[in-house]
């Protein structure tokens, strides 16, 4: 894909975030979509491309009343929306459509109009993982972390500092769910969920959604908001079975998607002003910093503990507070994308001064999938 040929011209989250028991999952999609369309100054009838995950495109398109000529229902977990951005950019460049709407919404806490997740007994996960007592992401996603820590000498205190630093960002964000300051000791004394992870190292479970609108960079200048260009993209998958990852010292999908996006954007790590790494759990920023090539894995824990990613640090990371403190409806990728767009537009609650390049890295279905988008506000 050629860089800076497609831009985000609309970006918005649902009117409310948090616990929204009076709104169905499908309506949350619509609420996010209508907010993004208003943000872009468009009408629903302007949308000719559509992508979403979990809910089918036909379901959401029918509900909204739109008739796209390009659809994408890629559903690879929480990073599906990074893949949608990548696919939409390619589709716009190829002339398959002009204006793409991407929606995410999830009634993750209230479970209104949301189908339960289940593992079929005759699937490989059903046969070779489920019988051992895995029960949702908290018992699966952290499985690699003890090996990762042993290999690289990462300490429990360093891992806890991920949550502490992100809470500092959340404190500056009026929309964040959890804003009270916490210490490493608070994290290490919080309720045990799945050793070594305690409550404050696990993401929130909330309701909400978000939507993006993309169009060609040539058209983007006519929109009311400052365009945010797609500079580079990457995607990959590894395995749906956490036990079958190639190694627990790294994510194969991260290592493919991340560097691909950097190469396409033609940037070096020092060019990155703002970074989002999907943090369903506290280990993911460490995996991400290493696998994206910012530093060797063994330095990642100390890097965060030393304050390099906190407000005023040299690499602002997860500046909305992340999945640990901002919100996490179950598929966090859309919120990470929203928080990459905000500082590029200059409207983030905790604005990073003069930021020109934001990297947004996602993960899906534990370590099964990954997508990376490099954004810039300069064409």
């Amino acid at each position: 894909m050629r860089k800076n040929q497609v831009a985000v011209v609309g970006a918005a989250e649902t009117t409310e975030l948090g616990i929204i028991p009076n709104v169905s999952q499908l309506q949350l999609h619509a609420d996010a979509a209508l907010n993004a369309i208003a943000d872009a100054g468009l009408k629903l009838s302007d949308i000719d491309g559509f992508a979403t995950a979990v809910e089918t495109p036909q379901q959401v398109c029918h509900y909204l009343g739109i008739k796209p000529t390009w659809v994408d229902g890629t559903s690879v977990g929480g990073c599906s929306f990074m893949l949608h951005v990548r696919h939409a950019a390619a589709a716009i460049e190829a002339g398959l459509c002009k204006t793409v709407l991407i929606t995410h919404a999830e009634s993750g806490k209230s479970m209104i109009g949301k189908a339960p997740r289940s593992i079929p007994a005759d699937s490989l996960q059903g046969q070779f993982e489920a019988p051992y007592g895995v029960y949702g992401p908290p018992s699966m996603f952290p499985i690699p972390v003890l090996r990762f820590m042993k290999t690289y000498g990462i300490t429990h205190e360093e891992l806890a500092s991920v949550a502490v630093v992100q809470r500092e960002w959340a404190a500056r964000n009026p929309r964040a769910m959890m804003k009270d300051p916490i210490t490493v000791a608070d994290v290490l004394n919080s309720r045990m969920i799945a050793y070594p992870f305690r409550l404050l190292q696990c993401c929130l479970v909330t309701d909400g959604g978000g939507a993006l609108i993309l169009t060609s960079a040539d058209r983007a200048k006519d929109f009311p908001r400052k365009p945010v260009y797609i500079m580079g993209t990457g995607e990959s998958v590894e395995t749906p079975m956490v036990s079958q990852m190639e190694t627990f010292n790294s994510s194969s999908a991260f290592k493919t998607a991340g560097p691909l996006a950097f190469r396409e954007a033609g940037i070096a790590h020092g060019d990155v002003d703002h970074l989002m790494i999907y943090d369903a759990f506290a280990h993911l920023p460490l995996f991400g910093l290493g696998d994206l090539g910012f530093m060797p894995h063994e330095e990642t824990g100390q890097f965060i503990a030393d304050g390099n990613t906190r407000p005023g640090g040299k690499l602002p990371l997860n500046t909305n507070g992340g999945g640990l403190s901002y919100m996490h409806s179950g598929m966090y990728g859309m919120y990470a994308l929203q928080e990459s767009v905000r500082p590029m537009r200059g409207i983030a609650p905790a604005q990073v001064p003069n930021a020109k390049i934001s990297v947004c890295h996602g993960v899906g279905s534990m370590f099964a999938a990954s997508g990376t988008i490099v954004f810039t506000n300069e064409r």
Partner: protein
Amino acid sequence: MAEPQRARPKPTPETQHFWDGTKAGELRLQRCDACAHVYFPPRPFCPSCASRKVSVFKASGKGLLYSYVINHRPAAPGFTPPYAIAVVELAEGPRMMSNIIDCPQTPEALELDMKLEVAFEALDDKITLPVFRPTKG
């Protein structure tokens, strides 16, 4: 009311040999006849070179504790927390998820790289699960 039961695997034609093996007290893996790659979970071709010429063999049942979590909550049906969900690296190379028996479910007792050996736990007359215990001595 019956106690909630642990999730039961439902074999498919491609995995039946594995479950026949555990029932017979054997941990069966597959090896590629073309490139000698040993792999898991079962499939009728080599995921390394795509050859369809593969053989089933009885593994040693020996392995190392590669990583784990100790789940405190929420517990899966049939489990009482805290319990460890472990990944074992088998002597033949592949890794598999399992539980560790005959061992306290604590970080102190569950030492990474500790030696393990397979044991078999019958869930019913159809399914026997491979689990692992610390190797004595």
